[in-house]
């Protein structure tokens, strides 16, 4: 659940499309179903409406959460599942499942410190981990001052904000902290929900950003588009290559581009802390999960055709909803993966 209820505009668009699509009845339409991650729901809805117009095939996607999506595909009640967390080799092997990324989103640290404009604060992974561990408690801590020598930082206590609901945003954020801080890895670890050492929990991106807006000297993490739309102060990050990078579509794509997909079987890789020079360090994706030997071959073929169409023709729709389309290099790898792994 990377983004639940992102913002009204997106929902209005989705709703309008949903209404429009009910009237467009195609000839010999195949209806396929998918379920899972609510992060991808807005973009999948938009894609499926456009796809239905073109081919007459309807994609019925239910955003019941990643956990539900995984359970549904395991039970074989849907044609594809979608999860914000990749499945491991053992699970994939046991059920004969395969998985591949569908779309990219970015996560940004967001803050409310008087006198510091959005994009002016620099943070790095180690500092962020220490703040979330409760080791750094003041904004004028030497670690933060060292990264921001020109900023006037207050001697105020940092109020840490995290997600209270289980979410893909939390999974990617905690995964990033685990990669950059060994103490975080042993003390907290990564997951869609974790045992937070400090801080308060907001429900959804909207809950977290409401808290950040209201509580002075707070720090949280939200989905990138959400920070943009709500004019919340977001921080820029020092990435794995040591460069300070901005959260932009190009930098999210750079992360997806330079993540080590080649050495990860079944795309079982979380692309946080990617090595690229411009890679945004907390970049996230979501995975489509399907049977390698589908029970309903005709439906599976439509599903593959749908995602192929989405990679090639759905980029504008994704961008209009502030998602980031997969870079061409990754799409190529996915299409190779389909050919070699899936028995069609």
């Amino acid at each position, binding site marked *: *659940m990377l983004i639940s209820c992102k913002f009204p505009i997106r929902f209005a668009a989705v709703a309008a499309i949903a209404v429009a699509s009910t009237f467009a009845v195609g000839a010999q339409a195949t209806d396929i179903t998918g379920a899972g991650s609510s992060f991808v729901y807005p973009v999948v809805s938009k894609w499926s409406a456009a796809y239905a117009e073109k081919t007459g095939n309807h994609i019925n996607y239910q955003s019941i959460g990643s956990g539900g999506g995984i359970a549904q595909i395991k039970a074989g009640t849907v044609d594809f599942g979608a999860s914000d967390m990749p499945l491991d080799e053992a699970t994939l092997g046991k059920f004969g499942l395969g998985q591949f990324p569908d779309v990219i989103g970015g996560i940004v640290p967001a803050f409310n410190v008087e006198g510091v404009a959005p994009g002016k604060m620099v943070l790095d992974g180690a500092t962020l981990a220490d703040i979330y561990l409760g080791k750094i408690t003041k904004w004028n801590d030497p670690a933060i001052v060292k990264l921001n020598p020109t900023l006037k930082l207050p001697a105020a206590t940092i109020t840490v904000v995290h997600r*209270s609901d289980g979410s893909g945003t939390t999974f990617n954020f905690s995964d990033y902290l685990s990669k950059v801080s060994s103490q975080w890895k042993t003390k907290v*670890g990564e*997951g869609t*929900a*974790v*045992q937070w050492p400090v801080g308060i929990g907001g*429900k959804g991106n909207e809950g977290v950003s409401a808290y950040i807006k*209201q*509580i002075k000297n707070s720090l949280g993490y939200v989905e990138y588009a959400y920070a943009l739309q709500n004019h919340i102060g977001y921080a820029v990050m020092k990435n794995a290559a040591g460069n300070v990078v901005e959260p932009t579509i190009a930098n999210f794509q750079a992360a997806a581009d330079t993540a080590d997909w080649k050495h990860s079987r079944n795309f079982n890789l979380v692309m946080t802390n990617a090595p690229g020079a411009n890679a945004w360090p907390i970049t996230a994706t979501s995975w489509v999960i399907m049977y390698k030997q589908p029970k309903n071959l005709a439906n599976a073929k439509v599903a593959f055709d749908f995602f192929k169409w989405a990679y090639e023709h759905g980029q504008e729709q994704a961008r209009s909803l502030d998602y980031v389309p997969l870079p061409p290099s990754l799409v190529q790898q996915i299409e190779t993966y389909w050919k070699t792994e899936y028995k069609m």
Partner: protein
Amino acid sequence: MQVTRAEQPLARDIDKRSLIDARHDRIFQWVLKFCALLVLATLLGAALSTLWGGHEVLFGHSLHFLASDAWNPVTDDYGALAPIFGTLVTSVIALVLAVPVSFGIAIFLTEIAPTWLRGPVSAAIELLAGIPSIIYGMWGLFVFVPFMANVEPALSNTLGQLPLIGQLFQGPPLGLGLLTAGIVLAVMILPFISSVMREVFQTVPTRLKESSYALGSTTWEVLWDIVLPYTRSAVIGGIFLGLGRALGETMAVTFVLGNSYNITSSLLMPGTSISSSIANEFNEAVGIHRSALIALGFLLFVVTFVVLLVARLMLRQLAKREGK
């Protein structure tokens, strides 16, 4: 003969009629019994299915689950202490605030208010009861939390300096937390308690009150010594109706409680409650995590049941003391 011939069909008619009546009565009783049992079956079904859904945690690590304040989805280590603590504390705050105010509202409406004012104020209270809890949550988050953030420093500087109760008002002024959640809950349960109180205060016979006034009692004395004893059990019933609602309230609490698995001595600190934990995490929970959340649901049943049981015992004790 003629007489008996005339009587016979009549007797038969009566017999037939009474048979039909008896059958109708039986059917009516079955229907009623079915309605009543349906409630019982629903309740039992819900309790048993939460018990079954949470059995991995409830039977597997029962002691640990009840006694631990950990909540770690990564290592699958769950304890219910923090959510139970938050649920009880916010509900108690809500009662402490809502009961006196409800009492005041009910007295005003039944004894003091001019007749033309009673209608509009009663309607307003009933409207308050009809507001969905998500609206209270939004109001709490966007209006009340910033307000509390401004009030809390004053609280820590005054009440927070007192011995003993000072501990309750320590900590950073976030605006969120147990106290804020308790106040929002108080506003939510106010209409329930006050409308029950108003209804039962109206049932007090006028001659009792007038006799008391005739003996020279003040309004307060009439209320405290005549109205309240006369309606005591119904008033307590109304209070526990409100408490039941406070214990299970979900959305409004989720917005303003802070959702942090904490057990603190300060009311200004964030906490979590049983229902808000479930609402927050159920969507993405799998395996033991899901089982732990369902087990929390079962515990809410238990907590509510215990509270109602205590209410019943209290009423019985009161009745005994009055020599009834």
